[in-house]
């Protein structure tokens, strides 16, 4: 439809032009075979106006989003040029007329028709721009009314065709009614509310310009109407009159509404600013910025919104005095003075509004250059974070509105801060989890994967980490001459630090258990267990944190001599089955943990113990995670129970003994969480195996 409408409109204008020219009685008229009948002019005129309006009606919506000023600007710049063109053509015509000797009307008619076309185009453009404004956020009722308005306006085009030129009573009634309809529709000026102060000024100027260009056209046509040279019949009076009236009236009304809205623009802008501030504040939550930034945001928004002259945020500090987090145009001593005064009156914890500081005793004595004060606490249901303080120079500076908007700001801020803290906690947890994963990988790599194998003993081992990484460790080392060193221990503390110390202990073990080439006797080639402990203690003294310590036991088993020696540095007692005596007992030896005393005197606290073993003897080495495992009644598994288990199982092989103990332990602590790492080694000595000598 759009594609045919435009050519038809142009075509009807060309016809109108030709028809007008045919009436000029000049050369063009004779060339056209004129004069043509009057109805041709009238019909083409009506067709052109209708076509132009319908074409504009179908064009895309001229209003883009809320860009009202843009709409007005586009409207004014186009028609502004059209009006200039119109005046320019008119002057050109005058100039040329004077030059011409004849009194030819052709040029006059041509310019007139062009200007008529421009005017109709301008009116159509204006009309449909106003439609966008009238229908902006309007109800369906208004939309329906607008359609009726268009239909009725269109109907007035027919007036001229029925030759109602002499003023007819119905003419007046219809035009009057439609004019009133236009006035009624001009009341729809909601768009003005969406402008800020600057835009309102722009809108006012644009509407004035709009009215001016309308005036140019109208004055042109009013003058021409009286001109004796005018050959064409008067244009579509009713229709053009009504559209001009509506376009002008709507612009005028808009101008007035905008003007009257100017004084209140500040209030609207303030409300807008409040909403925007609140939005900005809310957005900070998602951005996960720092608390400091949130405080600054709060202060900025609050200062801007209530238009304060000075402000600051004070945060509660659990141990010390509250601290100023952010401040705006105020000296530290003034903040301290105000706070001290509020505290004195016990007002520093509550919402407080004082609009007449010079008349309050305490404040008068401070001689502050301020007249009004608001204190708004920052608190959630659970706790209080601090408060925001706002000062204004004048008295009666704050109102209830300010108080309520500050309340909203405060609660939003507290929400942000709490969210931020929660997020940080969860991030921290995630980091710790990650670290623990690494630590347990490290720890896992520190536990020997291959147990030592020889024909004269059997070893079975079990090691289980608690959920958190603990500090249990054990290690083996074959020494020359069919000797075996076994180290077991437990680092106090958990996590990465513990894993680190485990690695350190392992390093110390491997470093100290090296053959000393300068040793004079076979015995001195390797350190005695007590010497090892003293050296390890010395090595650890500087790198172990003050409250940390390590317990360890070192056993050096010598097959050639059928005996072993060991030292216990604060570690759990060794459980032992003596096959000759047929009894199970703990080796009761003294021995201080590593890192408890960090000087040379440590050596006095550690002893070597020697024992000759017999085939069939069983040694059970473990960490406190075994004996301190708890049952539902919170009783500990205990040394006694462990001893009883060995009494029942000593005759089994090492693996079976271990399994029996673990089964019993699992039954005992069934359903209870594992609090500490558990390590269990069972060593069973065997009879001499000839031929397996290495």
């Amino acid at each position, binding site marked *: 439809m759009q594609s045919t409408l435009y050519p038809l409109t142009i075509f009807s204008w060309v016809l109108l032009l030709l028809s007008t020219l045919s009436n000029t009685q000049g050369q063009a008229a004779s060339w056209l075979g004129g004069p043509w009948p009057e109805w041709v002019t009238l019909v083409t005129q009506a067709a052109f106006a209708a076509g132009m309006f319908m074409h504009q009606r179908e064009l895309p919506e001229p209003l883009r989003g809320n860009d009202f000023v843009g709409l007005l600007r586009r409207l004014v710049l186009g028609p502004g040029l059209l009006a200039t063109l119109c005046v320019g053509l008119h002057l050109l015509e005058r100039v040329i007329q004077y030059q011409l000797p004849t009194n030819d009307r052709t040029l006059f008619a041509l310019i007139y028709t062009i200007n008529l076309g421009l005017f109709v185009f301008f009116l159509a453009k204006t009309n449909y721009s106003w439609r966008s404004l009238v229908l902006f956020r309007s109800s369906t009722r208004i939309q329906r009314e607008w359609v009726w308005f268009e239909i009725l306006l269109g109907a007035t085009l027919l007036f001229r065709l029925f030759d109602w030129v002499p003023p007819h009573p119905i003419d007046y009634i219809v035009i009057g009614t439609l004019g009133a309809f236009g006035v009624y529709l001009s009341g729809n000026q909601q768009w003005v509310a969406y402008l800020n102060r600057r835009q309102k000024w722009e809108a006012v100027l644009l509407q004035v310009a709009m009215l001016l260009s309308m005036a140019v056209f109208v004055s042109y046509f009013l003058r021409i109407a009286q001109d004796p040279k005018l050959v064409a019949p008067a244009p579509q009076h009713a229709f053009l009159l009504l559209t001009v009236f509506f376009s002008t009236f709507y612009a005028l009304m808009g101008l007035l509404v905008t003007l009257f809205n100017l004084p209140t623009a500040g209030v609207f802008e303030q409300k807008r600013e409040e909403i925007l501030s609140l939005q900005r504040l809310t957005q900070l939550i998602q951005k996960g910025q720092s608390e400091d930034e949130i405080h600054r945001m709060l202060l900025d928004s609050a200062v801007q919104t209530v238009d304060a002259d000075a402000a600051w945020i004070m945060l509660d500090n659990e141990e010390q005095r509250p601290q100023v987090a952010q401040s705006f145009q105020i000296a530290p001593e003034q903040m301290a003075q105000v706070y001290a005064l509020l505290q004195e009156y016990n007002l520093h914890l509550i919402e407080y509004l004082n609009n007449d500081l010079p008349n309050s005793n305490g404040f008068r004595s401070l001689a502050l250059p301020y007249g009004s004060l608001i204190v708004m606490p920052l608190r959630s249901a659970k706790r209080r974070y601090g408060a925001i303080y706002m000062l204004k120079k004048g008295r009666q500076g704050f109102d209830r509105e300010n108080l309520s908007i500050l309340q909203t700001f405060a609660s939003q801020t507290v929400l942000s801060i709490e969210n931020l803290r929660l997020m940080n906690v969860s991030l921290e947890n995630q980091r710790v989890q990650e670290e623990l994963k690494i630590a347990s990988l490290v720890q896992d790599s520190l536990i020997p994967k291959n147990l030592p194998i020889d024909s004269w003993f059997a070893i079975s081992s079990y090691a289980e980490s608690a959920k958190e990484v603990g500090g249990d460790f054990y290690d083996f080392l074959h020494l020359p001459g069919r000797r075996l060193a076994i180290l077991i221990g437990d680092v106090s503390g958990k996590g990465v630090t513990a894993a680190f110390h485990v690695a350190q202990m392992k390093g110390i073990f491997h470093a100290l258990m090296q053959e000393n080439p300068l040793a004079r006797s076979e015995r001195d080639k390797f350190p005695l267990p007590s010497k090892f402990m003293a050296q390890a203690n010395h090595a650890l003294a500087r790198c172990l944190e003050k*409250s940390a*310590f390590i317990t360890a036991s070192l056993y050096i088993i010598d097959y050639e001599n059928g005996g072993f020696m060991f030292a216990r540095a604060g570690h759990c007692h060794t459980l032992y089955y003596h096959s000759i005596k047929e009894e199970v007992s703990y080796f009761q030896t003294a021995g201080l943990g590593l890192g*408890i005393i960090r000087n040379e005197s440590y050596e006095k606290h550690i002893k070597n113990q020697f024992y000759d073993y017999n085939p069939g003897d069983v040694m059970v080495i473990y960490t406190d995670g075994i004996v301190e495992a708890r049952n539902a009644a919170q009783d500990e598994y205990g040394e006694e129970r462990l001893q009883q288990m060995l009494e029942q199982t000593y005759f089994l092989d090492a693996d079976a003994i271990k399994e029996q103990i673990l089964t019993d332990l699992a039954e005992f602590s069934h359903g209870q969480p594992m609090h500490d790492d558990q390590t269990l080694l069972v060593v069973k000595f065997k009879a001499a195996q000839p031929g397996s000598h290495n």
Partner: protein
Amino acid sequence: MKITQHSSATTLTLSLDGELDASSSVLLDTELAKPETLQFQKVLIDCQKLNYISSAGLGVFISHLQQFQDAGVKLVFFNMQDKVHNVFEILGLDALMTIVPSEAEATAV
């Protein structure tokens, strides 16, 4: 873990109630780390209601041991339950710290 304290001119007594584990040992550490603690001649620890002590708990005493010795403050434990005493003993702490059965003996030390 609950720590109650009462003091005379020369003696500070801390009564431990509950389990001294990693989290509660922080409380104890705060108490012992106070500068005024070193003003006393004796610090008595009443362990009657101490049901359990973890290595973190032991670590707190160990870390303050040297400081107390240097300041000439005697650290005395009393009323210790057997299983807690066992933990001190295994670690070898009984040789370093004064552990006595009753409050009367602790006061007399």
